[in-house]
């Protein structure tokens, strides 16, 4: 077939408008291997520069070539517009144009993008550049079989498995009952519509196929907006619709996506991210890389016909997370090993450092909390330990106090016991008399009962006092405690010639342990009694309570003994300080510990008229009404 020399005005206009040459001169001046002549590469588009996915192939091949080429590259791009016109558009002017254009500087390599371009270069190879190697890129393998390849041709094929593409749709949206095929009406699209129709699974009751190939794009949009439920749209190609409108710039999918009420799918990952759900797709980047690779090898001198690469098939399924959300597709429904893209970055990804700092802070805080808790636990354990020690010591001290008072206790017990004995013996005498004086015997029995109860009470009281219990805090009334202590102290005081008196105050409630408070008072009282041992004056022991402000109450125990040396006043509550021959020196120390553990304080003073006053102060459970 000869190349016509004549060029029509229409052709020039067309080529002037749409042909362009991009000369990319990569300069790597430092590399001496560079030849002075650049490598000339022509990239031939099938429809135009901006038809997706081919535009993507071209872009990526270009970029990859420039990146990997060790030579200066001159890249020239042309589009084969004839296929956009009807099948009879004359190709000769374009052939001539190309031949003339490169007459002086024949290209080193021609890369065709897509099947129409591949077909074109095949057809005009002998007229144009018979010996120039060619790479036929982005050609589906079905189309290659129809080509007449020479030793100067290398093919980077793709392999499109429609059954898998459709199978994916049914898998991720099992409910789908209506599959819309959005495809244009150009020759290549017709070809693919036929291929697809052949390879689609048979139409069943469950899945109907709706073809949009004979609709204008506007009509497609209208219908896509009102699809019945459980529909899905598979866009194959949409270069030129049935109305003859070419849709460049890859906008069809975006526009469909904007109106469609059903999920969109495609066979090429060039559309991934534009609104398709995803699935197994032809990987444009991989095919482009492969193409660039083959091109570089050819430029380096390898024979094009010797380079065989396997066709690139559908890649690992990829899905758009946003579309999955929109169509309610769970990650569980996806085929195994699917990748999910466009997932919004997790909080971790977005705020990694903030989170690291926050987590570190939290960890540090947690550690400190643990440390503090541990410390608290230890302290509580120590408190418990010291408290139980206090309880033990206090109990020992009480036992000692009672030991000191044993004479008086015996006396106290012997009173009722003696009375009982007397009464029994009197009764025995009366029983032998006649007539029986029943009245008196009744009185006697009643007195025995009373004395028995009295003895029991004394023992019970002592036992309660001696009991080794836990520290139990209750609301206790101080004057009751003073009365109880009085009962214990009085016999001993009587024995030792000491008069005991109480200045009764208003009831004062404090938080405390009954027995321990008794013990404090008993210690103070016994201390006072001991202090008066050698006194020749009147021996008086006096208990008194008085409120201190509205929140505290003070209890004092004063004696008329020898008083306390001024230097000893402070240390009198220390352990092992005793002025007595038989004292343990623990009584007052224990008393102080008890009072302080109840939140009070204890101290000693000397009385103006001689003798000492020991006082302690405790917080009231309830503040006094003013």
């Amino acid at each position, binding site marked *: 077939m000869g190349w016509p020399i004549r060029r029509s005005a229409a052709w020039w206009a067309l080529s002037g408008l749409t042909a362009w040459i991009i000369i990319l001169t990569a300069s790597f001046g430092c590399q001496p291997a560079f030849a002075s002549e650049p490598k000339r590469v022509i990239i031939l588009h099938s429809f135009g520069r901006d038809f997706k996915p081919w535009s993507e192939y071209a872009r990526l091949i270009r970029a990859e070539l420039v990146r990997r080429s060790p030579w200066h590259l001159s890249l020239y791009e042309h589009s084969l517009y004839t296929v956009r016109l009807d099948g009879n558009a004359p190709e000769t002017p374009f052939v001539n144009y190309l031949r003339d254009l490169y007459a002086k500087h024949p290209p080193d390599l021609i890369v065709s993008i897509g099947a129409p371009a591949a077909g074109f270069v095949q057809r005009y190879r002998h007229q144009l550049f018979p010996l120039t190697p060619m790479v036929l890129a982005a050609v589906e393998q079905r189309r290659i079989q129809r080509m007449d390849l020479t030793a100067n041709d290398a093919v980077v094929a793709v392999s499109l498995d429609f059954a898998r593409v459709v199978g994916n749709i049914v898998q991720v949206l099992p409910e789908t009952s209506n599959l819309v095929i959005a495809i244009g009406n150009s020759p290549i699209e017709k070809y693919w519509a036929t291929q697809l129709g052949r390879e689609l699974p048979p139409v069943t009751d469950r899945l109907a196929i709706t073809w949009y190939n004979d609709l204008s794009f506007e009509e497609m949009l209208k219908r896509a907006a009102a699809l019945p439920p459980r529909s899905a749209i598979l866009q194959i190609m949409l270069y030129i619709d049935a109305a003859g409108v070419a849709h460049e710039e890859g906008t069809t999918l975006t526009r469909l996506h904007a109106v469609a009420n059903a999920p969109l799918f495609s066979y090429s990952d060039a559309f991934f991210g534009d609104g398709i759900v995803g699935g197994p797709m032809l990987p444009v980047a991989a095919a482009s890389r492969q193409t660039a690779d083959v091109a570089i090898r050819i430029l380096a001198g390898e024979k094009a016909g010797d380079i065989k690469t396997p066709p690139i098939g559908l890649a690992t399924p990829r899905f758009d997370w946003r579309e999955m959300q929109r169509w309610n597709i769970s990650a569980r429904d996806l085929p195994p090993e699917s990748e999910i893209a466009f997932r919004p970055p997790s909080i971790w990804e977005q705020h990694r450092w903030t989170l690291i700092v926050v987590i570190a802070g939290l960890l540090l805080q947690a550690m400190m909390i643990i440390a503090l808790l541990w410390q608290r636990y230890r302290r509580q354990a120590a408190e418990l330990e010291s408290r139980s020690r206090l309880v033990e010591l206090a109990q020992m001290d009480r036992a000692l106090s009672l030991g000191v008072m044993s004479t008086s206790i015996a*006396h*106290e017990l012997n009173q009722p*016991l*003696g009375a009982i*004995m007397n009464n029994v013996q009197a009764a025995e005498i*009366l029983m032998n008399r006649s007539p029986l004086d029943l009245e008196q015997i009744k009185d006697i029995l009643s*007195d025995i009962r009373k004395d028995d109860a009295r003895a029991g009470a004394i023992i019970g009281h002592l036992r309660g006092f001696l009991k080794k219990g836990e520290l139990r805090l209750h609301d206790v009334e101080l004057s009751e405690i003073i009365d109880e202590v009085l009962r214990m102290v009085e*016999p001993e005081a*009587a024995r030792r010639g000491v008069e005991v008196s109480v200045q009764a105050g208003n009831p004062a409630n404090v938080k405390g342990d009954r027995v321990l408070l008794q013990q404090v008072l008993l210690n103070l009282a016994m201390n006072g009694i001991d202090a008066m041992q050698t006194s020749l004056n009147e021996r008086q022991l006096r208990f008194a309570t008085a409120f201190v402000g509205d929140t505290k109450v003070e209890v004092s125990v004063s004696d008329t003994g020898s008083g306390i040396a001024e230097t000893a006043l402070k240390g009198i509550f220390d352990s092992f300080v005793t002025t007595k021959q038989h004292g343990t020196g623990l009584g007052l120390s224990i008393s102080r510990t008890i009072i302080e553990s109840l939140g009070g304080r204890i101290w000693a003073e000397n009385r103006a008229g001689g003798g000492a006053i020991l006082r302690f102060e405790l917080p009231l459970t309830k503040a006094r009404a003013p």
Partner: protein
Amino acid sequence: MTEARPPTVHIVDDDLSFRNSVARLLKASGYQVALYESGKHFLERVPEDAPGCILLDLQMPGFDGLDLQSRLAERDNILPVVFLTGHGDIPMSVRAIKAGADDVLSKPVAKDDLLEAVERAISKYSEAHRRREWMSSRRALVNTLTPREREVFALVVRGKLNKQIAGELGTSERTIKAHRQAVMEKLKVQSVAEAVTIAERLGLLGDLR
């Protein structure tokens, strides 16, 4: 003081219950009882001189048994004191005994021990009472002596002979003999030895020169 009246036990104890019970027992055992809640109370109501004893609690607040005992001694009391103690407090018991207590009993006390001690104390009272009666009757006899006779009596009980007495008083031996006769008659004694006993018991040996 009639024979029909039983002796009185004066019970001094601060413990009402014990006081009543011991009173009951003693009454049942045939004694009269008088009850006092404290030593001071007892002193306020000094009992009439009648056979009996004091049953005294050793330990009482303020004015205790020993205090009362010493106050009674000052008052020429002859009522024997039996102490009761709630607890065998040895130092106190010793003090009580030294101060003239007749007995110290521990509470509770068995009836027999109590009654025995009370009986012994009451018999001591009778003895003491008799001795006091004797003393007061003899003191009355001594008081009937004229001053001259007292001088003679004082010298006689010191074992002086008539002649020595006459010499000392500057009078005749005969006069002294008559005085001596009068003294012996007034004092109703038969022998000088009896007269010496009276002088000694009334504590006159020191008084009379």
